[in-house]
């Protein structure tokens, strides 16, 4: 009697609500969805359902990526793009993290800077491109400035909000242990908010990539975006798609690196029980 019952209950429903799935299933599912995507793409191009000129076959795009890197020195464009993202993002972080923490810790600082920061956050960064070009010419400066403007105000706000969420009891505990303002900001508030700052940086780095492409498409002769705009002129859709894929892979790689960084910096958060 007991056997059929247990057998029945041991059969798992595929879509079971809130039931964890195995690691193998996660990997298979992740690969599966991409196989389906490329399968549809391949099918559409092979059957002639789409114009190959506008939608090149996936294998053609992969070949193009290979050619771009091996024969046409695309790596230097990629390097330039990565360099722009890193420089602009670091500059934005160097401004946003200290300012955001100070604004989150001291309401007086928030009262001064927040009206300014909130207003800038609502100005679309790309609208500054014409004036940035007039001010800085066509060198690296206008691109870096666009990335900086696009990221810094959001990052300040995120850091400030996370800092405000540091629990009051932690600060009051430090006060009753005899800590002064400086010590509390440096030794309690900053380390307490740091994990959330790294998460905010991870989110904003993705946004930086978006602005990078805008900057390079509009006003650049180097970088991934510029390559894509050149390709458009010669109807090289395969190169445009190659650029998109390279940007996607780069974004994903940076995201994973940040995830690793988070684990490495904050080992104590992994051991929660």
């Amino acid at each position, binding site marked *: 009697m007991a056997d059929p019952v247990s057998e029945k209950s041991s059969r798992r429903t595929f879509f079971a609500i809130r039931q964890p799935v195995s690691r193998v299933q996660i990997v298979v599912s992740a690969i599966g969805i991409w196989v389906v995507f490329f399968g549809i793409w391949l099918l559409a191009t092979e059957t002639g359902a789409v114009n190959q000129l506008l939608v090149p076959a996936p294998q053609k795009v992969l070949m193009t990526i290979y050619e771009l890197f091996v024969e046409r020195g695309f790596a230097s464009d990629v390097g330039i793009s990565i360099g722009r993202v890193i420089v602009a993002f670091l500059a934005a972080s160097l401004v946003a993290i200290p300012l955001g923490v100070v604004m989150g810790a001291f309401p007086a600082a928030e009262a001064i800077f927040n009206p300014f920061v909130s207003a800038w956050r609502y100005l679309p960064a790309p609208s500054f491109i014409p004036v940035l070009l007039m001010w800085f010419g066509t060198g690296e400066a206008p691109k870096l400035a666009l990335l900086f403007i696009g990221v810094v105000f959001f990052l300040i706000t995120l850091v400030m909000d996370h800092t405000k969420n540091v629990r009051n009891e*932690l600060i009051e505990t430090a006060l*009753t242990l005899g800590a002064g303002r400086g010590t509390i900001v440096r030794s309690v508030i900053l380390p307490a908010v740091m994990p959330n700052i790294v998460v905010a940086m991870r989110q904003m780095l993705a946004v930086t990539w978006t602005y990078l492409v805008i900057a390079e498409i509009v006003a650049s002769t180097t970088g991934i975006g510029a390559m894509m705009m050149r390709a458009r002129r010669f109807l090289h859709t395969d190169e445009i798609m190659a650029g998109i894929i390279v940007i996607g892979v780069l974004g994903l790689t940076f995201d994973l690196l940040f995830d690793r960084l988070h684990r490495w910096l904050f080992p104590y958060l992994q051991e929660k029980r």
Partner: protein
Amino acid sequence: MARTDKQAAPGETILALQNISKTFDLGRGRSVEAISGVSFDVKKNDICVILGPSGCGKSTVLRMIAGLETPTAGNLGLEGRRIAGPGRDRGMVFQAYTSFDWLSVRRNVEFGMKVNQVPAAERRERADHFIDLVGLTKFADAYPTQLSGGMRQRVAIARTLANDPELLLMDEPFGALDAETRWHMQELLVEIAETADTTIVMVTHDIEEAIFLADQIVFMSRHPGRVKEEIRPEFKQNKRIADKETVISLEGYSALERHIMRLMREEGSKE
């Protein structure tokens, strides 16, 4: 770290509250009187428990002793000095966990001493002493996130005591713990009070906890918060007994418990 400015001898008054009132401004010209004319003294090395129904302002009184809030009127004196703002002489343990998760247990306990520039060697020695006192020696190098709730509160107690305050203030420190852990922690606190040279002011709404721990109970009523009755549990005959069953079976325990329950009930009927 022998402190020379601890003047009061055991049994003498160390903390004096005189006519403390606190009015909270609700805006638009409205205000509410949370605390009204609260006066009581705490003797050195005593455990003073402030007990009362929720909303009686007991936590506000404790926070004013800590210097985290300022009274609207009245005087708070520690060893004859007026309390103005928080300081290391009054360390606070909260109900919510306050361990600094990014520091190991040992560095948590060293935190206050580091802030107060205690030399590294002495810091280490005192930290180890108090970690041992709360029974966490095996976990000295662990992160607080690896510990249970009761252990985290022990870290908070050790951290405060290692900083050598004159008062250990506790705001419902065992409120978030399960019944069994709370009971162990209460017994541990009695042992600590016996071992460490410290005066404890603690807030709770748990009658049993109050009777078990207190040398002095300050019962507060609400709307507004006043001292309704000061009780010294005489049945314990000035002894601290770190064993709950023994205390509960003492003659006089249940009479006091009944008495305080009546006080609570009177407050309940006020609503």
